């Protein structure tokens, strides 16, 4: 993990309130992998104060990027992230221009497993969880993942950023795009319409709001699949030092750190009961 000053290479809106930002990556640092995240310091004043964590949504290796990095350590790749405009920090990020510097701590956290278990991986995404699932889908392209993305309504689906050639089911709460209902509803419908699919599906990977993660976990349990979830929690240090970002887990320790042991966890480890009270 390094404290980096990277160069913004791209920024575009991908859905209502959602943006994709791309920034340079040092040639001598291992590329980020799906599930890992980084933190950004926005501005230099006392507010917003804390660094903000974001998951990587993609990475493109490349050739040296002009004016990014130093001659000794040129930047050769582009890392990307899809973020939602929520409060002061993300608001301010939408105003950052190509060429500006981004203060980044990266790469952080425990990624998704490098190889999925047998079968077509099922990737379930919603809200700010879409970014990492797009990256995971891309990296497992050859394994024919099934990607399911849910949103409140059409406008919030990152249609601009969807991958080509990956089977993707979209669903919305209001039915304005794809089927109406949750991602799990969509998954169940797909399985019941196509029993072959159901048999072919392997383990489950989810990132999104906690209720979506809990539902993915329950679905996986019922269908005897493994499930990995990528969790969120307000962070202090993001490097494992402050014990601020913990979630309740089963096991000898009552809590695990989202920034170190996570953000990706085997869903069986999570104490979903305990989490609800948080």
């Amino acid at each position, binding site marked *: 993990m390094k404290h980096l000053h990277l160069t913004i290479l791209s920024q575009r809106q991908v859905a209502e309130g959602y943006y994709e930002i791309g920034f340079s990556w040092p040639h001598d640092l291992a590329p980020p992998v799906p599930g890992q995240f980084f933190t950004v310091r926005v501005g230099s004043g006392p507010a917003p*104060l*804390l660094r903000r964590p974001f998951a990587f949504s993609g990475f493109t290796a490349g050739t040296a990027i002009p004016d990014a990095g130093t001659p000794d350590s040129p930047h050769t790749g582009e890392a990307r992230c899809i973020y939602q405009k929520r409060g002061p920090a993300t608001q301010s990020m939408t105003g950052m221009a190509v060429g500006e510097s981004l203060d980044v*701590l990266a790469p952080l956290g425990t990624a998704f497993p490098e190889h999925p278990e047998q079968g077509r991986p099922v990737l379930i995404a919603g809200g700010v969880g879409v970014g990492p699932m797009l990256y995971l889908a891309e990296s497992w392209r050859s394994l024919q993942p099934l990607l399911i993305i849910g949103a409140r309504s059409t406008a919030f689906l990152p249609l601009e950023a969807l991958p080509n050639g990956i089977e993707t089911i979209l669903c919305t709460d209001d039915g304005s795009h794809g089927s109406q209902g949750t991602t799990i509803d969509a998954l169940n419908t797909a399985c019941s319409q196509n029993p072959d699919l159901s048999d072919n599906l392997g383990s489950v990977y989810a990132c999104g709001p906690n209720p979506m993660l809990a539902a993915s976990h329950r679905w996986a349990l019922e269908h005897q699949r493994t499930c990995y979830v990528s969790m969120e929690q*307000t962070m202090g*240090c993001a*490097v494992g*030092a*402050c014990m601020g970002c913990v979630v309740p887990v089963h096991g000898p320790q009552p809590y695990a750190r989202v920034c170190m042991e996570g953000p990706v966890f085997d869903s069986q480890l999570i104490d979903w009961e305990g989490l609800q009270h948080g």
Partner: protein
Amino acid sequence: MAEQHTGFDPAITIGSKQLPNPVGVASGTFGYGSEYDSLFDLDALGGLYTKAVTLEPRPGNAIPRMIETPGGLINSIGLANVGSRRFVTEKYPFLSRLACPVIVNVAGSQPEDYLETLEYLEQHTDLWGYEVNVSCPNVKCGGQAIGTDPKQVESLTREFRRRTTRPVIIKLSPNVTDITEIARAAETGGADAVSCINTLVGMAIDIHRQRPVLPMATGGLSGPAIKPVGIAAVYRVSRAVQIPVIGIGGIMNADDAIEYLLAGASAVQTGTVNFIDPDVTVSIIDGIARYAARHNIANISGFHGLFS
């Protein structure tokens, strides 16, 4: 990285020992050091104060444990730590290899817990010294309950003093009517220094869910928002006691640290800023040395001499 600036001796004497320079990292914001190892050379630190260590492991408080406020951070970690035994086996090996002073922040519910932890650490480690946390606002007993009572502070300090020749630093709470009274009690009890301040009692409410954001309701407020409170506390305390004062609270950069030194601090600790600018101590150490060189300050007391 830090340049050498001739003529300025950054060392500070605390009891029987020296801190090599005035910039340490505050308890609870730097884990047990290893977390930051890849970011900069920890040996350059003027002190590494560990997360609080208690006799037995503690899970810490319910979640969420943190919330940002204007210019500040409220935390409710609740002394989550691995306990004294696992500290010795899991954390100490890394710490013992560092060249910088390592100070364990000791906490407990009862005075006896503090003392047993101290005795255990005295037997199993060779630390630079101890910082006694009688000012944690995030636990029901111990912590602040002791630190707001001068009698208890004096007697606990005295018990520490009897059991160790290493520096004993008492960490003061700002949540008191007269912080100088507590500082004097620590001095009378035989403390080698006081650190000030710990966090302020603070609270935030989730207006969408009509409940406190933190399950424990209140937590500890840190960050730039509290710097004026820390400066005022150091200014007062350093005029009330003879022992060195270690200034803490809202330091974000070298200028903030210099404010503390001018106010009367002999050293400082960076807390919340470690989350924001994890290698900031490097530039703070350097910034202090530059300032000292520019103003012909020979050593830390030179900062106090310059102040009017």
